[in-house]
Each structure stands twice: as structure tokens, then as C-alpha cells.
């Protein structure tokens, strides 16, 4: 017999109610996975000898995401961080970026080195997928309207700043440069920019050498050849460990000449492996490790509590601020598809140590400092 619809309705009500009660009952025991989470991807070199930059960046990003989630997420949605290791290998970088896009990340925070960023740029632009790099500073990507944005200045600012400092303040005239080809996009560019500005200011780069980081590199030979050229000073563009190695050998050879390093090497590993050999080296930086700005002091405390008794580095700060830029933008306009436009429209952001800008090409503008190492600590010279 056909039961009329109304009867079904009347019977369906208690049945559904019972099923509902049972569901609630069991749901109380079963935990449902959070499908609402907003996914943010991070990519950097997390393994290998030059992994410190990537790991610092990852730590900064991690702390940012944890801070955001503790404050209730973005627009009420919790943030899920997916981290990937590009192993400093272009193929791996492409692979993990695709993975992040496929896994539904709304943005990639990365890469940490310019070479990796350059390697993945075509696919990022093709997919119109926003990549916000904490530390990619190659000048090759400056002034281009694409899907690559960064919270760091193009390195010309720093190289110009360095060149100016060494020629005006230190009165150096004959410089040597050495750079690591394993992050060529960054290092070669960096060395060339420095040379250009330094020579523009009347100096001369009399010696240039390069190496590709690996077990076969003999830093002893590199130092010996370099010292033969008798430069007034040296600029090393390499990762922390390799920079430390070069410094060790320069000092072992008895030279006390001024050494300039790049931001790439500004991690605790430099101090650890450099020891006395890195005392007094000079670099430029966007952060002041001794800053007493409240935002930064609180951040520093949280960071040390979270990752052990270590100082946050510029890579940590940049990673942290990159996530905060994304958070700001998404709070203004929750549509991830318009993230790039929202960021570019906002233009100014509150960094941990003050305001910085991101221009219409996605390049940041921040204040820079001259930093040196005193008693195994990075210390700002020109406050």
C-alpha cells in the first residue's frame, strides 16, 4: 500500500530526530577533521648545508601561523601551514610548488633563495598563483608586475648601501668578491650590483671568484688565491656555513682585512662556525636585533620560547612578516583570488620593527642598517 506523503512526513520527523540524536551522540565521541582551515604553503631549503636560511624562515612562518591561530585565525578560519623542502633543487622546487597548489594553499610563502624563486616563477605566473617571498632579493625580479611579491627589498638597496659604506666610511678602494653559484640568481646579481655601485663611487673590484658549494670545495685554496690579489676588503656572497668557512681561512692565513657578507649568511650558523673569524665582519640588514620596539620585543620572547634559546634572525622576521601581510590582506578581502591586488592596494604594512611598503611591482621598501659582529652577536652600527 502506498503511504501518502503527509504520513511519511509525520513518520519521518521522529525517525530523523532519532537519527539526529544518535548522530549527535556519536559525534560527541568522534572528532571531525577541520576542513574549514585556510592553507598557507611555505617552501624553502630545509635540508642540507645551506638549510639554515630555510629553517629560520620556516620557524618565522610557523610562529606567525601559531600566533594567528591563537588569536582565532583569519576571518574565523584556522590557518593550516603546509611546509615543503625545495632541497635547493629547481626540479624539487617545481614539484613541491605544484603540490602546494594542488593541496589548496592560498599562497606560497617562499622561496627563500632567489635561484629557487626564479626557477618556479614561470609556473607561478602561468597559474596566477601568488608567491610572497620573505628573502628573495635578486634585482632581476625588481619592477616586474607578476605574481611574485616580496617583503624584502631588492638587493640593489643593500649592495648600494654596502658599496657606499665601504667607500665613504671605510675608505676601501680595492675590493675582492667571492660568491656561491649554488644560489646564482642571488649571488651573482648581488656581486655584480655591488661592483657596479662600488666602481661608480670610484673603487675597483680587483678580484672575483666563485664556487659551487659542495664537498669538493677547498676553502683553503680559495683563500690563498684571493689573498694573492691583495685586496683592501672582501665581499662574500654565500650561505652561513660557507661564508664562515671562507672567513676562517682568511683569518687562518693571517689576514685582518675587512670582510663584508650578504644577508644570506646572517644566521646563527655563521657565528657558530665562524667563531672569532667572523668577529667584526660587516653586513647590511633590515632588522635590528637589539630593537626595543614592543612588537619586536614580544615577538622575540615568543620566538625564543617556541624554538629554544636562540635569537630570531632576519629570515625569521621576514618569514613572520610575510604571513602577517597575507593575514592583513585576507582580513580586508577574504577572496584569495584577489590576494595580490589586495596586498598591492594596501601598500603599507606594520612590520615588527616599523612600517614597510610593498610597491605596485611587489617589491618591498624598508630601512636598512649596517650590522657587524661583536662578541659573537650581530650588532647594528648605524642606529
Amino acid at each position, binding site marked *: 500500500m502506498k503511504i501518502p506523503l503527509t504520513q511519511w512526513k509525520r513518520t519521518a520527523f521522529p525517525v530523523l530526530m532519532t*537519527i539526529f540524536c544518535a548522530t549527535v551522540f556519536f559525534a560527541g565521541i568522534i572528532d571531525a577533521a577541520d576542513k574549514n582551515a585556510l592553507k598557507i604553503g611555505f617552501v624553502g631549503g630545509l635540508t642540507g648545508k645551506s638549510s639554515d636560511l630555510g629553517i629560520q624562515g620556516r620557524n618565522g612562518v610557523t610562529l606567525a601561523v601559531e600566533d594567528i591561530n591563537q588569536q582565532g585565525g583569519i576571518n574565523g578560519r584556522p590557518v593550516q601551514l603546509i611546509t615543503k623542502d625545495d632541497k635547493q633543487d629547481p626540479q624539487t622546487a617545481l614539484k613541491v610548488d605544484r603540490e602546494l597548489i594542488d593541496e589548496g594553499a592560498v599562497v606560497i610563502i617562499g622561496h627563500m633563495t632567489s635561484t629557487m624563486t626564479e626557477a618556479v616563477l614561470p609556473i607561478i605566473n602561468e597559474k596566477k598563483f601568488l608567491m610572497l617571498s620573505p628573502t628573495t632579493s635578486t634585482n632581476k625580479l625588481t619592477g616586474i608586475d607578476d605574481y611574485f611579491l616580496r617583503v624584502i627589498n631588492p638587493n640593489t638597496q643593500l649592495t648600494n648601501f654596502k658599496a657606499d659604506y665601504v667607500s665613504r666610511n671605510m675608505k676601501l678602494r680595492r675590493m675582492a668578491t667571492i660568491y656561491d653559484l649554488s644560489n646564482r640568481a642571488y649571488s651573482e646579481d648581488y656581486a655584480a650590483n655591488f661592483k657596479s655601485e662600488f666602481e661608480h663611487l670610484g673603487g675597483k673590484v680587483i678580484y672575483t671568484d666563485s664556487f659551487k658549494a659542495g664537498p669538493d670545495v677547498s676553502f683553503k685554496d680559495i683563500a690563498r688565491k684571493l689573498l694573492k690579489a691583495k685586496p683592501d676588503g672582501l665581499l662574500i656572497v654565500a650561505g652561513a656555513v660557507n661564508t664562515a668557512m671562507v672567513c676562517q681561512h682568511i683569518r687562518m692565513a693571517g689576514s685582518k682585512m675587512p670582510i663584508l657578507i650578504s644577508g644570506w649568511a646572517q644566521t646563527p650558523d655563521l657565528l657558530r662556525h665562524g667563531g672569532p673569524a667572523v668577529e667584526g665582519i660587516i653586513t647590511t640588514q633590515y632588522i635590528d636585533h637589539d630593537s626595543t620596539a614592543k612588537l619586536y620585543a614580544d615577538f622575540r620572547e615568543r620566538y625564543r620560547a617556541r624554538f629554544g634559546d636562540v635569537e630570531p634572525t632576519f629570515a625569521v622576521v621576514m618569514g613572520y612578516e610575510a604571513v602577517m601581510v597575507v593575514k592583513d590582506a585576507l582580513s580586508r578581502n577574504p577572496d584569495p583570488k584577489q590576494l595580490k591586488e589586495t596586498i598591492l592596494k594596501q601598500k603599507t604594512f606594520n612590520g615588527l620593527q616599523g612600517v614597510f611598503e610593498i610597491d605596485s611591482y611587489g617589491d618591498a621598501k624598508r630601512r636598512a642598517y649596517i650590522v657587524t659582529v661583536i662578541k659573537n652577536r650581530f650588532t647594528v652600527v648605524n642606529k
Partner: protein
Amino acid sequence: MKKHAFSLRSILTFSFILLGGLPVLIMGFIAIKSISADIDMEVRAKNLLIAQSLSSEIQAFLNDSLYTLRLVENTIIKKQYINKNQINSYLENILMVHLEFDSVVILDEKGTVKFMAPYNQDVIGMNLSGQAFFSLVNRQYKQPYWSSTFISLQTGTPTLTLAIPVKGGAIVGYLNLATLNTITDRIQAGRLAYAMIIDREGTIIAHPDRSKVSERQNLRHLKFIDQEKPLLKGNITYREDSRDYLASLSLVPQTQWTVIITVPADEAFALVTRVRTLFAVGAAIVVLLAVGIVFLSLRKVLTPLSQLVRDVRRIADGSYTFEQKPSSYKEVDELTDNFQRMAEAIQSREEALQESERKFRTLFENSRDAIYITTKEGKFIDFNLAYLELFGYTKEEILTLHAKDTYMDPADRDLFKKTMEKKGSIKDYEVKLRRKNGQQMDCIISATTRYADDGDISGYQGIIRDITEQKRLEEQLHTMSLTDELTGLYNRRGFFTLAQQQMKIAERTKKDMLLFFADLDKMKHINDTLGHQEGDKALVEIATILKEVFRESDIIGRMGGDEFAILAIDATDETREVLIDRLHNILDDYNRPEGRSYHLALSIGIAHYKPETPSTLDKLMAQADALMYEDKRKK
């Protein structure tokens, strides 16, 4: 009708399901809770034991490593067994035997690398005083120092250093963390359980997922680490990547590492999950079963009941059809049957009522008598066509009329009411009523009183017959008699009235007629000898005979005394002979019996009316009378 929030169906269905499902749910809940607690305790106890044994193993490993460096110290520094030139190769040999060391370095008091294995000329002479192990081992501890992990310059993999202060410097061993992994990998504590080690900073140094080690992931946020008060052993739960974990911790005192045996809670509680699933399925089956039973049972009860409710509603609305019902429980069936019988009874009664109403309505409407119903106050409620015709009003006019308006004397209406109040009903109550045109009518009313439910008089209903004409005829008939009382034939007036009428008809229809004039012979003799009684009897016999001889349509009359006249309609000369013969034959039949006191005989004269030569009745009568006398003379 009162609106109920829940139907019987809802309540019963809910109750059934609750009755079936609730015990299962409660039992399931209790069982799951108690099993969960048991498993939780068991897993934790087991894992803690594993963590502790692992911790002991790692302590042994660290002690072995320390022992190795002490051996080196003893051999090279204290006893100086080894020639300076051969120290590097001695160290190489140590590495070959003690695979846990990636490298061994001997530093001088400034932190400069003096000897090392594997030998690397780039590193010899380098200053490692920036490394934590050097500053700490020399300045503070004078004790073995276990570093936190870092990326080895040589291998590029996470490494930690064990440093011991020695005379004139320090000996540093770079310990390969892979060794820790070989220890932790042996742990089998369930399918998804695994062992990991974190250093005092919270960085993972051993983990089945090697990338976590090589990426130097830090678990400090999980609050394992409390540098003020390291947890020696214990159980905690933590949440990572939306997954809960049960972790059992044990501290390695030398290095303040924490050995963690961790198992995803859902894995640890796999049995619970299974039991829960089982109960969920069980509960679902019970609920489904309950729903099934509810459906079968309720359908059996409620469908006929709902049907019944609908049927009753339909009956209330005036339709008496009962649908064919599926059989249900006895009580419901009985209820249904009784309702059905009730409905049938109501239906047949109503039909009878309707039939009766129809009948009476027909009677009412078709009656030649005027029938009406009024209220007590005299307002007309109902009336038939005859009433309207009688009074000459239209329907609309009647409805605005007062009953008094229909009386010649309105006071008669009050009289009528008074009578009705007293008697309740009246019969053939004579009253003079008034037509619309003011004409008076003699009427008789038969009426009854209508009572309201409370017993009060609500109105009257009655039948009115107009007897005005009847009264007039009564009077007329009284003065005008057409029949002869003795014989039942027409008397002289009757005969002439009808015959004259017939003459007119015959004239029009051109029909022949015969007028018979008959006289009973010897009437005087019968009267005189036998008495008037016998004479009357003879006259009656003659009348009977005449009725026998002539047709019914013929007009037969007794003209007075012993004279009779018959007008035979549509009769010719041939008919005359037949009639005469028949008359004589019947007379003979009457006279034949023996012992009759008198003899019947008639003298007859016949006049023929021919349409072609019309004549008056009087002429015909005179002609027939003359012929009759002639006949009598001949006798």
C-alpha cells in the same frame, strides 16, 4: 477542533525508536567509555615502559660514546701513547670501529683544530671557539658537554657534538644521529606507534620520518619541554595536524633529551573505534528495525485508524462511503466495523429521511390544497404553489406579508392562535380568508403547532382548503335533483338536461339517434291488486331491464309514473330492431319463471332523429309518445 502538536503516529514512532534505540545507545556509551579508559591505561603503561627502556638504551649509547672519547683522551693526552704524527690516523681507526662518530676533532685551548678524523686540511687550523661546545666545555662545565643539534659541515646532516675538556683543549666527537634512529626504529608498539627523540631545545633528533630530523623540526610548542623542571617520565596527550596523540615520555638525563613513544589516539583506540562502529551499526540496525516494526505495526494500527478518522470526517461532512480497510488489530477492526455500521445506519436513516422529505416535499408542492408554515409571530416560512395560487400572491409578496393580512377579519388570526395554544391542533376550522384582490374565501384550516427544542411554540403549519365553490354547489344540488330515487335512473329533469345536451352533440357530430318512449302495461292493475310495493318492484325491474338492454352511454330516464324514455345515441333503424328484440327477449326471461305475481310488458314508441332532418327533443318526445299510445291501443 483543538490542534495537537504531535500526532499519535509521531509519538508512537518516537517511543518505539526510543525504546529500541536508547538502551543500545546507553549500553554502547558505557561500554565505549569503559573500554576507552582501559585501553588508555594499558597503552600508556605499555608505552611508558617502552620509553623507559629506550631511554636506558640511549643512555648506554651515550655512555659508550663518552667512554670512547675518554679512551681517546687516555691514549693521546694522558698516556701520550701515540706519536703526534700518528694521531690523525689513530683517530681514523677510532672512527672505523665506532661508526656512531662521523668525526673526531682535538682542539687546543684556543679552540683551534689540531687533529681530526676524517682528515680535512681545510678544517685543520680553523677556530671552533664560536661553537657552544667549546665555550661551555671550557668555561663552565669541565664536564662532558652534549650539544644541541646542528647541520654538520662535513656531512650536511643533523649532528650533535659530544665534547670533553682535556688538558690543553678539548676532544669533540661528532655523533651521527642516524645511530639514534637505528635504536628508535626498532620500536614496535603497534602499527602506527613510533618512537622519537627530541633534544633539549625541542628539535627532533630521531624520528621515523627522517625529514623531520633533517628539517630540524621543533616540537617545543607541544610543551614537552620544561627547562626548569624536566619531566623524568610520564604520559601526556597532544594534538598535531588535527590529530590527537598519546605520548609516553622518558628523559635521558645526560643530554636532557626526551624519548617519546607516541601513538595516534585513533590508532591506540582502534579497538574502541571498532566497538563504537559496531555499536553504531548495531544502534542503526536497532533503529532501522524499530522503524520497520513501527511501520508494520503502526501501519496496521494507524492506517485504518487514519482511514477511520478520514471516513468519520467524511461522514461528518455528509458522505457515507466507507473505504475498504486492511485488517488491523481486533480492537481497531471492531472500532472500524462499528463505525461502518454506524455510518450505514446513519446513511439509511438519512436516505429514508431524504426520501420522506422528498415525498413530502412533492406532496407539499403538488398538493391542490394550500399548505403553509408560519412563525408564531405570523411570518411565512414555507408555502406551496397552491397557496400562492389560492391567495393570488407572488412568492416575494408572501414573504413580506403577515399572516393576519390573509384573514378577512384580522381578529380571526388571534382567535386561531388562541385555539391553537389551547388545543395544539385544529381540524377543519372554518374561517373566512382574504385574497390579494380582496375577494372573500370560505376556507377550512387544519393546522398543528410547531414547537422549538425548548418546548416553546415556534410557529404553526396548516392546510387550507377553499370551500367557497363546494358550498355553492351544495346549495345548488340541494335545489336541483336529476335522478329518480326509486330506480336510480334520471328523473324527468335529469333526462331532459342530458338529452338536450346530447342533442347538441348529435347535431354537431351528425349522428343518428333513437328516442324510445315506453310505458309499463297494467301498472294500475298491479298497484291496485298487489299493492304499491309490488308496483315499485315492477318499476325497479323495468329499470334494470332497460339498463341491460341499452348501452351505458345511452340516456335512460323515468319520466314519471310508469313512463320511461331512452335516448339511444348513435343508433339507426337497424339498431332499433335489435334493441326491440333484445328487450322482448329479456322481458320474456323475467316473466318466464312460475309463480310470478305479475306479468311485465311495455308499450313502446320510437322516434328517429336524423341529422339531415334535425328536430327538437320536444318534437321527438311528442312523436314517440304518440307512437307509444298507438302501440298500447293495439293491445
